[in-house]
């Protein structure tokens, strides 16, 4: 790398930065939508898949999303239950 870049190189780099910034804005907007719309379970799935991990952390879905902490978090009953119910997915076939 030289100490001084040519005007053409500077223009190319500036264009590249603008392009990356646009891409970052698009990606951020998508992530904000996903964060707003997805339930906790799907958010975790998405995060794991994006990080090239297995979509399922273990074979025990009952523990899904349980974070092991001894700190108490103040929550609202309605939103907590909404999160729990959303994380359950579709009902099993009771007739089976």
């Amino acid at each position, binding site marked *: 790398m030289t100490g001084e870049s040519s005007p053409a190189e500077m223009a190319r780099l500036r264009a590249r930065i603008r392009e990356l910034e646009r891409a970052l804005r698009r990606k951020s907007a998508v992530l904000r939508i996903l964060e707003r719309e997805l339930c906790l379970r799907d958010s975790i799935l998405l995060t794991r898949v994006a990080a090239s991990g297995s979509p399922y952390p273990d074979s*025990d879905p*009952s523990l899904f999303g349980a*974070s092991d902490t001894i700190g108490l978090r103040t929550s609202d*009953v*309605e939103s907590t239950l909404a999160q729990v119910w959303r994380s*359950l997915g579709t*009902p099993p076939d009771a007739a089976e």
Partner: protein
Amino acid sequence: MSHPPATVVVLGTGSPDLTRTCLESLSRTRLEDARGLVVSPGSGAEMPEKLRNGGWIHASVSADAPLAARLAAAMESADPKSDLVVVRSEFEFPQADWLERLRACAHSAPRSGIVGCRLALAGGKLLHAGTYVLPDTYWVQEIGHFEKDVRQFASVREVEGVALSGAYIRREVLEAIGAPFGDFDSVFGDAEYCLRAREAGFQVLCCGAVTLLGREPWRTAKDLDHELRSLQRSRHAFRDRWHAVLGQRYVHEVSWHSILESPTGYAVSCAELLRALDRNRVRVIYRYAYGPGTPGPDSEPQETGDHLLDVLRARPDPPEPGYTVSYTQGDIFERPPGRYRVGYTMLEVDGFPREWVRQASEMDEVWVPTEFNRRGFLDSGLKKPLFVIPLGIDPDHFHPDIAGYPNPLGDFVFLSSFEWGPRKAPDLLLKTFNETFKAREPVRLLCKITNRNPSIRIVDEIRRFELQEGGGRISFILNRQFPYSELGSLYRSADCYVSAGRGEGWDLPLMEAMACGLPAIATDWGAHTDYTHEGICYLLRSRGTVPADPTNPYYREFRWADPDPDHLRALLREVYEDRDGARRRGLAAAAEIAAKWTWDHTAMRIFARLEGE
């Protein structure tokens, strides 16, 4: 039964738009034979045609006319033989039969004089459900202020005061003490009118079956400053006028040593006990009981934003220590001084440690919440007078009409709420549930677990149970603390409550769930035996007793229950299969708990002990 006619007076106290919205809302309700009067500045153009055609009339007042002048203007046209319904134009009427309900409530007893409503904000918060004034501060306090509205305070309750923003006043009250508002153009005017009615022998009621909806008022900083100055002036005048009456609020005084700021049963029950004692004419001076050298934290905050509790803890000590209650573990009974000392405690096993018995023996008397604990103290050698003072529930926040958020998938939900540890036998509950049901059945166990022990990893503990994927499905809510005023909603979101532990000193969650009308499965041992029976609960058999957890120093040498997993399996299945039977048992539980086991019952028993009864 026919009641006297009512005159509805709408005081246009906000903008013309607000008054119009209020009147339009009012016009959509059943106003029966009520005569209507609207008092507002201007021409009354905001009155809907339906009301105008119904004979409602408008009286014009100046924009700065005080409430008393506005009401006087209306009363000139009112039928002097009618009851009066005062409505302020900031509110709307979501219930078509609001007036019928208020009128029925007002005429349900000969001495009921003023009936107010639940006032809520359109955004889902409660404004209040009645008021009270403490003689320490003389601020008018609003009951339930800004709690999430989950249909709490749904019954008819006698209260010290109500807001005259939507209140029914019987004509007997008007004849006895005149029209409301008087000198104070604020909440103090409402409080004073209610006090005067009570002095004249009338009851002031809050009718929980009627809710009016308001909007959060928008104020500038200047408005707020003006309002606060005006309120302070009213407060001082109110205090000068009413201090002698409010000073007679209490009959007894107690120094109460316990804990309030902790996510424990002691702290929750302590707060509810203090509220109930205050309602029942006991002046409580609260002091934090624990501190350095005790099993509790060194200190707790002096202010929490809960007006009543903050006032109780700010009260100065009496010149001579008087009647003192330590509502704590038995090994710190001897800390507070007192002329007459009471230790009030509980434990989850069949006896009490020697140190607890030693300190209890230093007390003048000892209280326990259950016969189970009374036997435990006697068996452990206590010779002092021993009284059973049961704990309770708050029927305004725990009843079957509290709003729930049930599982939209329709699964039958068993709920259990507990702190992780051997006493609660989580292995028994989780394994038995997992074995009893199949994953394909529409049923689920929801465990609300608290774990404050850093040496325990819940996920690892549960993995050790080797729950089967094809077995009953279990969900967890881990270390979440819900506002106590919303907890009823958690219970109302489930179909059955399970408390299958080895021993309880009381078990507030079980009793709260039962008060909410949930069928419950509970181990037939320990404190449960004092308030459960087959008519209101599914009693889980114990195979006998086994030595209690020896790692807990308070449990060494003692025993607790050994719940029968086969019977738990049968009970889970029975509740799941016979839902009508379970529902009936749950509703029977709710009725019995409300009738026998509330904090007011507890406070009345304490009052009786203070009287020496």
